[in-house]
């Protein structure tokens, strides 16, 4: 299996090989992996990659998937332009 041809994060082009390397190096939380590899920071905001990465962390470290999946969500959900924010204020 060529881990470098298996894409985990489509937005930021992160492969299974990279994810497994990071976990083996000791980066075993979603937050750490996100900050190093950028997965989850692209336009989809981690929708596709998060469950896959959590599964890898669980498989390698034996950690409980419930614990791994705990993470923060911050607004805004979806892109907003400055113009759209300003137009909203004009309405007030």
């Amino acid at each position: 299996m060529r881990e470098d041809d298996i894409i985990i994060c489509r937005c930021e082009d992160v492969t299974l090989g990279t994810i497994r390397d990071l976990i083996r190096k000791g980066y075993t939380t979603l937050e750490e992996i996100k900050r190093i590899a950028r997965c989850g920071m692209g336009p989809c905001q981690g929708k596709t990659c998060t469950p896959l990465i959590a599964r890898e962390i669980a498989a390698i470290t034996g950690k409980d998937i419930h614990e791994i999946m705990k993470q923060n969500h911050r607004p805004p959900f979806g892109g907003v332009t400055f113009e759209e924010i300003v137009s909203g204020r004009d309405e007030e």
Partner: protein
Amino acid sequence: MRIKEHPILEFERGKKIQFTFNGNVIVAYEGETIAAALHAAGIWHYNESDVLKRPRGLFCAIGHCSSCLMTVDGVPNTRICVTDAVDGMVIRSENRGDAK
């Protein structure tokens, strides 16, 4: 390819319109998303991925996965799978790396 005959569904297509994709004229019908019109025209390969330069195309078609982002009438990062095609639109595929 557009489905002409279907055993259950009937498709009412809107007015015929056209837009350009990377300079090529694409025919669409009002009410179709840009992605739907590109798919009907046989365009599956949208761009090369940011880092690894792998070919990418439509994936989720509901605006969640980010694979279909394009520059539409000058607006970058537009999700073409949830953006309706409008007559005269100018659409360019983008590699996000280009902006860096």
